């Protein structure tokens, strides 16, 4: 890729933002290597968060799954699993980091707004304005079996509940005015009279009545993240979110198409089109030369896609249990069984199994691939592979053309998997002027370059109009 004249692009001054996703599930995290660290030891989380902070990342991000994954009614045992409660772990990290954002994935179906809003506020105060909330929704009764509230939401209701949840949370976060707490022990009361408002909300999903417990943080509200890729999810993000994660970060045209779509939805929602940061999830594999990077990728894929994992991924595609087959042998001769995916594995629904299987067969035959090699070559794909300078050129091109605002990077190794990115890639990006050389603010909102929270903007507009 040739270097572009930085001024002859749509966004000559655009900056990349990095988040790190400590995933804790899925086969992308290698557990079999000698330097694969613990998935639960607090030292692993501290090491990753502090490395990311050294690399001036915007955010450290934790996922959530409220039930251990199962395949065919049995607990899935091939991938890393067992992770801490996100907000609890992030509150601990607030004590050992200073600038990086701390983002929790928390479910709007299996939480209640007053409780979760308060937990996020607490994290926001303890981190002095660095909290974020990745809003996720679930509708299945399978997860609900772990909760007293029980299962299930109608599929259509999950975003309705999420949106109303967010409305209640924001009302609670706005329940205390700025400077609502007294500044002297001689004040008439602990809080400034009239500055704390009771919140009564009666809606289709929630009926609550309370006095919120906490003042606003340095960033006003926690930053809202969202990851839904359906039209419904994208619209939800366009109306509500500050940051959207996506799966559209590998291919430039695909990324740009997604970004243009989000910008159109933002305009439709009455928001400026630069009001949302677009951070696709990705994996970044770095080598000193292209060959070395490709060699490293091959090693990583073999660790990630073990024979059993290859059979598991193929089994999902074929719709039959292939666990007793030989992953290093040819593709199964069986016809795929098209069945309704119950989603319990958390797997993507495969659009046309028969066509995909036919394509796999053709390519495997042409290249002489085993089943495992086929899964590695054609199965779930992601990530960028290259040299520090090659990747820096590529990412500068992506961000200056408005295809992305950055990446949410999943390290393939815990806890050292970010080191190459921080030590080798970040300096190259800085040299190209697309990456900060120091934190630009103290809060997550400031570092992401975001405006004030949506409800506070609308309150200000109302005041100005009145």
């Amino acid at each position, binding site marked *: 890729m040739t270097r572009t004249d930085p001024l002859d692009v749509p966004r000559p001054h655009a900056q990349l933002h990095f988040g790190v996703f400590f995933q804790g599930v899925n086969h992308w995290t290698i557990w*079999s290597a000698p330097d*694969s660290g613990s998935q639960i*030891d*607090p030292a692993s989380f501290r090491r990753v968060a502090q490395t990311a902070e050294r690399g001036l990342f915007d955010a450290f991000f934790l996922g959530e799954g409220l*039930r*251990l994954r199962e395949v065919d009614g049995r*607990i899935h*045992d*091939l*991938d890393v699993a*067992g*992770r*801490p*409660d996100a*907000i*609890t772990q992030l*509150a*601990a990290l607030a*004590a050992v980091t200073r600038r990086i954002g701390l983002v929790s994935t928390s479910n709007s179906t*299996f*939480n*209640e707004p*007053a*409780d979760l809003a*308060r*937990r996020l506020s*607490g*994290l926001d*105060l*303890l*981190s002095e304005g660095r909290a974020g909330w990745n809003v996720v929704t679930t509708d299945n009764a399978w997860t609900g*079996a*772990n*909760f*007293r*509230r*029980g299962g299930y939401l109608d599929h259509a209701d999950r975003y309705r509940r999420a949106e109303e949840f967010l409305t209640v949370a924001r009302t609670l976060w706005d329940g205390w005015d700025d400077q609502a*707490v*007294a*500044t*002297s*022990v001689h004040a008439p*009361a*602990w*809080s400034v*009279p009239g500055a*704390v408002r*009771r919140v009564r909300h009666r809606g289709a999903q929630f*009926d*609550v*009545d*309370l*006095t919120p*417990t*906490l*003042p606003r943080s340095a960033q006003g509200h926690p930053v809202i993240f969202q990851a839904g890729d359906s039209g419904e999810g994208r619209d939800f993000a366009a109306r509500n979110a500050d940051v959207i994660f996506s799966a559209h970060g590998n291919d430039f045209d695909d990324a740009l198409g997604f970004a243009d779509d989000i910008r159109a939805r933002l305009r439709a929602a009455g928001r400026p089109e630069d009001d949302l940061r677009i951070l696709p999830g990705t994996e970044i594999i770095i080598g000193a030369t292209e060959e070395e990077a490709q060699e490293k990728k091959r090693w990583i894929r073999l660790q990630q896609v*073990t*024979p*059993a*994992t290859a059979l598991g991924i193929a089994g999902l595609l074929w719709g039959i249990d292939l666990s007793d087959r030989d992953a290093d042998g040819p593709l199964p001769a069986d016809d795929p069984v098209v069945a309704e995916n119950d989603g319990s594995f958390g797997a993507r629904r495969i659009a046309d199994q028969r066509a995909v299987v036919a394509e796999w067969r053709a390519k495997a035959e042409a290249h002489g691939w085993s089943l495992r090699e086929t899964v590695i070559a054609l199965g779930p794909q992601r990530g960028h592979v290259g040299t520090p300078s090659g990747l820096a050129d590529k990412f500068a091109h992506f961000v200056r053309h408005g295809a992305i605002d950055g990446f949410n990077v999943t390290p393939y190794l815990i806890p050292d998997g970010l080191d190459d990115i921080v030590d080798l890639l970040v300096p190259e990006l800085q040299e190209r002027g697309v990456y900060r050389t120091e934190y630009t603010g103290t809060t997550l909102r400031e570092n992401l370059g975001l405006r004030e929270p949506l409800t506070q903007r609308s309150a200000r507009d109302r005041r100005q109009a009145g």
Partner: protein
Amino acid sequence: MSGPALHLAVELDGDGSHPAAWRRAAHSPDQLLTPRRVAGLATVAENAGFTLITLDDGVLPPGAAPDPVGRIGAMERAAFVAASTSTIGIAPVVPVTYAEPFHVSSQLASLDHISAGRAGWVVTEEESPEAARVWGRPPVADADARVRESRDGIEVVRSLWDSWEDDAVIRSVATSRYLDRDRLHYIDFTGETYAVKGPAIVPRPPQGQLVVLGRPDQVPAGQLDVALIAGRDPVAIATAAASAGTPRVFAEVEVALDTPDATGAERVADLARYASWTDRGRLRHVGSADGLVAALDGLSRHVDGVRLHPLVLDEDLPLLSRLVLPALSERRLVARPLPGTSLRSTLGLARPANRFAAAAVLEETR
């Protein structure tokens, strides 16, 4: 039991146990909800040699309307404090009257991992019907129903802690298996009002089971590691301690010490201008540090520990640290926790066997 005669815990919520404690605090109200304040207090308690910090909580703001006082959730404060300290035990208050036991179990297990086995859990009840309005749930109105919710909640939380055996993560490269699914267990809890499937999403806590503290009139003794008992005088405490039926018993003691500037009684009288010191039927020591040392020495014959509730943290905690704990240490009545020791070990409690692993072994040998 082995170890010191007395374990000392201290409650560190807000500015102290008096509702108007903030009036005598060494900082302005707007400094209460800051990381510096939260970590600073815990550090003082750790350096003083306390065994355990507790952090009070509830969904309703402390301080009555129209003057609510802010409070960061105890779980979040506990996790922050765990990462800011190294030896002291940390037990947040978490009621399960309305909360989801699955979440509570995950959060507490995570706290135990974060603190390398220094975590405890103080079980309380949400008594006010207003708490139900916060959760958007029907009120759990009567005392029996609240006891039922706590009992079921603790049962779920404790079962989930055992739902991963200690060695469930096997990392078997030969078989491509990260987990041994035979060492993971569905808890299949069914109570009167709800059911929980399991297993947990967090591996078994380092202590196996966290130290569970609570009031014996609210929680069945068999679910508690430490009973927190009230009583206005040593006789009442001795009586309650003798009948608690729990592995350990801690007495609740409220303290207002004489400072160089004002006696304990004067400080209580000063705050009485704003509000009365809530009467919870607990032993109260208002007076000198020496007097408190003598009182604790006396209590050490009846209980395993004492949880202190200072009138004003900024005034009483420094005196506890400078005068009371050193005097008790000199008499070998208390000992500071050893580095690298779990809270259970410090309290002389064994690491419990896993209920599911034990069952699995029985099954095999049958």
